[in-house]
Structure formats: C-alpha cells, structure tokens
C-alpha cells in the first residue's frame, strides 16, 4: 500500500485530539475521520483555522438501522489552496439523534444541515435556523430514513377522505 500524502494530517489530528479521533480511513483516496460528537466543533475549528480547510462541500447523514449508534453524520470540506479534502464523520444515537452544528465554523453548512434535519431527522445543536428545507413544514417523518417506505406517503385528492385508507390502497 502506498503511503498517502494525507497521512501526516491524520497524525497531527491524532496527536492533538487523542481519544476524540476515533478512527481514520483512506478509501480510494478519500480521507475520512470519525470524531467523537463532543469534539466535532473543536476538530472542525482546528481544520479550518490551522489546516486551511476553508470550503464546505456538503453535510449529510447515513442511516444504519441495525447499528448503534444508528446515524453517521458527515461533513466534507476542502482546502481550496492545498487541493485536499477531508470527510468528518460523527455519530448520533436514537431516540433523539443530535450532533453539534458546524455552522459556527462554516456558514455554508446552514442549508446542508437543515436538509439533513429535514430528510433524516438529525438535530444540529446550535444551528441558527433549523427548519425543514425541502419538505413542507407540516410534513411528518423524515423520508431518507431507511424505515420510511418509498411511495408510502398518502396523497389526499380533493374528492377523497384519508381516514381508514391505507397508503397502498391509494397507490392502487
């Protein structure tokens, strides 16, 4: 295996954050670190201020129903100057999955975290404006969770009443 150019960064992170850096991997050239939720803001702040990761690409989450903790929350950031990328992962547990928001570090995380709340139901502590983004405000449930069935949502037509009607019956 070739020595990755990103290895020193992981070493620096490990030295600085010790136990908070739970895991790191380099899969197909993509560097990922798994960070303790309590330390994620601190790590993010360090990555931005000291390592030059100035550009947030996206934030999202992955639902693993069989795992505990159930959710992996992901932010990916890039250093425009060094042309490097790092994926910051942390975990959130049911029944009230929440992680710290990184909007205080990268303001661009705002909508991405709102979307993650909307579609996966992860609360971001410290987010300035955590409302649903894509789904209507009155929507129940979080569609990208694995236990949310595709095509299962009831559709109410003007001449239909919803009571007693199974979603499948509506789908026909």
């Amino acid at each position, binding site marked *: 295996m070739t020595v990755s150019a990103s290895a020193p960064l992981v070493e620096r992170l490990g030295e600085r954050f010790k136990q908070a850096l739970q895991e790191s991997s380099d*899969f*197909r050239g*993509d560097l*990922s670190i798994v960070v303790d939720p309590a330390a994620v803001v601190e790590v993010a702040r360090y990555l931005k201020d000291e390592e030059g990761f*100035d*550009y*947030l*690409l*996206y934030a*999202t989450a*992955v*639902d693993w129903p069989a795992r505990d903790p159930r959710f992996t929350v*992901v932010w*990916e950031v890039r250093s*425009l100057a060094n*042309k490097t*990328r790092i*994926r910051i992962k942390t975990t959130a547990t049911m029944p009230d999955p929440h992680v710290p928001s990184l909007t205080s570090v*990268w*303001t*661009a995380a*705002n*909508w991405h975290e709102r979307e993650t709340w909307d*579609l996966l139901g992860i609360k971001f502590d410290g987010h300035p404006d955590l409302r*649903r*983004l*894509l*789904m*209507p405000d009155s929507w129940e449930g979080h*569609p*990208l969770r694995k236990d949310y069935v*595709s095509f299962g949502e009831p559709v109410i037509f003007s001449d239909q009443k919803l009571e007693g009607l199974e979603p499948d019956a509506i789908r026909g």
Partner: protein
Amino acid sequence: MPSVAETSFAQEPFGPEHEPPTEWMELNMGPQHPSTHGVLRVRLKLDGEIVRDADADVGYLHTGFEKSFEDKTYTQGITFSDRMDYLAPPINNVGFVAAVEKLIGVEVPPRAQAIRVLMMELARIASHELWLGTAGLDLGVYSGFFYAWRDRELVLDLNESYSGVRMMTSFTRVGGVAWDLPEGWLDQLQRFIDVMPGRIDDFEAMLSDNPIWHQRLKGVGVLSRQAAIEAGVTGPMLRASGVDYDVRKAFPYAGYEQYEFDVPLGTNGDCYDRYKLRVQEMRESLKILQQVIDSLPGGPWLTSDRKVALPPRAELSKSMESVIHHFRLVSEGFKGPVGDVYAFVESPRGELGFYLVSDGTNKPYRMKVRPPSFCNLQPLRQLVQGVLVADVIAIMGSMDFILGDVDR
C-alpha cells in the same frame, strides 16, 4: 376651524432620511414567478422598494431522487441523474457514473472519455446559452432569447443524433458510454463549432457594451472573494469573485488534462462578471471541442470488464459465458465493495458531487448529491439585503440555479 393665515407653509424636511419609518411589507415572490426559473418561492420583506430580508423557500420540485437511487441498481440510477439538473443532463450522467467507477475501480477507455468530454462541453454551451436567453429575458432583452434558443437547438440536435433523445441523454454506462459516435456526427459537430464563435460575437455585440445591460448588472449582487468561499458558492459564481477553482483544472477527470483551455476569472464578483464569464466559458468549451475532434482516439468505447459492462450483442450467439454475464448484469447488476466515495465534476453551475455509500450490494446504500445550484442559491439572503426589488430579478438571474438541481 383654522383660517388660511394659521396654516403653516413652512418647508417640511424632505427626502428618504426624513420619511417616517414605514411598516415592512412581506411580498411573496413565486413559486409561480417567471424570474424564478422553475418553482422557487422567495419571501421578501420590503421597506418601500428596498429589500430588507429574504427567505428562499425551496422544495417544490423535491422528487426524492436520493431515495430513489437506493431502490435502483447502479445502471438504472443513471436515468435518474439526468432529471436533476435538466439543463445539463450529460454532466449529471458522467458525475453519477464517476462515483460508481471510483467505488468499484473500473478503467474507462480513452475513446469513451473523449466522447464524454464532447457531450459535457456541448451541455455546458447549451446550458450557458439557455442562461443567456432567460436571464436576459428577465431584464427585458427579448431578442436575445430567440438567438440563444436558436443556438441551443443545435446542441439538442447533436444530442438527438447521438443518443436519440434531445435532453435526457442517459448516454453513460459504468466503464464507458452506451454507444459509439454515429456516422457523420463529427461533421455535424464541426459545423456547430464553426458557426458558434460568430453567434457568440453577435450576442456580445448586443449585450456586452449595452448601456442598459451595464446599468442593470454592474455593481449589482456583489459577492466578495471571501464571502464567496464562506457561502460555499461554486462554479461561475465562485470564479466571478476571483477564486481560481474549476474542477476540470484542479482535479482533471475524463482526460481534461490533455486539452488546453483557460479558466476565465472575474474581478468584481458582480452580475456583470458572471455574465461575462459564462460567455467566455462558452468560447473555451468550443476550444476544447475542437481539440477533442482533432485528437479523438479510436478503440472501444466501453470497458471490456464483463463484470460491469454488457457484452456486445454479437457475442451472445457464440459464447455461453457472455450469455451468463448478460443475464447477471441485466437481472441483478453488479455489486460494489463496502465503502464510501465522493466523486465530482464541473457542471455549468459548478461542482456537482456525488457522495456514494455502498454496503456491498448492487444498489447504492445512500447517494447524496451535492448540487451546485443548491450551494449557489444559499447566499441569496445576503445578496438581496438592501437592494431594490428589480435588482432581485437580476441577482437571481445571475445565479443560474436550476430548481430541479436544488430540490432533487
């Protein structure tokens, strides 16, 4: 009753600074507003004619593509990718398969790479043409719209003669492209390349030095270099603010490193720079297209790895093994290793990324799309604070967002 003499005719202080504070009005712009190019709703808080605050309400075109990807095999997913950014489908196709190729580690033959570049650059030109037409239309340039759509039509014709479809090309396959270029297609493309520079000149003659165009765009919607990076905008919006970042240069894919082209940069970060930059990008795309034609490699256009790509039809009547591969690929597709990758391409609107999580099955476990329009729309609130309502149209036009891309 006061007499005439008692009435004061003294001059009251006059001007906006002396007017009593007005009550802010909330104006609902969209979702069915022509300038929103789709269905975007913006709630504006107005102080007279000045915008004090804005809240973009997106999601009207949310169709759950990310959820749908989880139910489809990797090959089936290609057709979904078209429909997100419906103005540059080939680039979405390439971005999607780039993520899958990165995950499973398959080589793409050089001819397939070249065909992908051809289709992507054509899509970039078509998308910028459409942007020129519609953004101009918002500001009252009616004739520009017709010129732009005439020229975009040429690209759609090329799409049609290559893939049979004018917009949703779905032409990529994991490990290559679905078809070789048809006979005569390159001549058709050459005619397009020959005619386009003059047409872009016409456009520039109409707009670039037009005083009304300048008044509407210069100094409007300024995004500084620092603010652009912080807001996470991408593509022409980022480059108009002077940040030299183009995926094709910074992280070349599909063989872009072989072609010579410049990445135009803006200096002021205003709407005019964004216009100018897109026009220049069209010229650069034409340069790339010419270079691809001149250096088009021969050989296969799909990988010979039978684990991911269908065998040629003729082999099916001769080889039992091919029949088995064909059956396996059509019935259940191929599996990817466990892991997660992020692959990204430069769409006309910026960096289009696909974050693919695989659990080792034949379908993506999670497919997160990083849509450039979404990232570009996010700073709308900052950009429109303090401007006139009419400038909101110009600013939204200059952002070039596609709601299908924003909402997915």
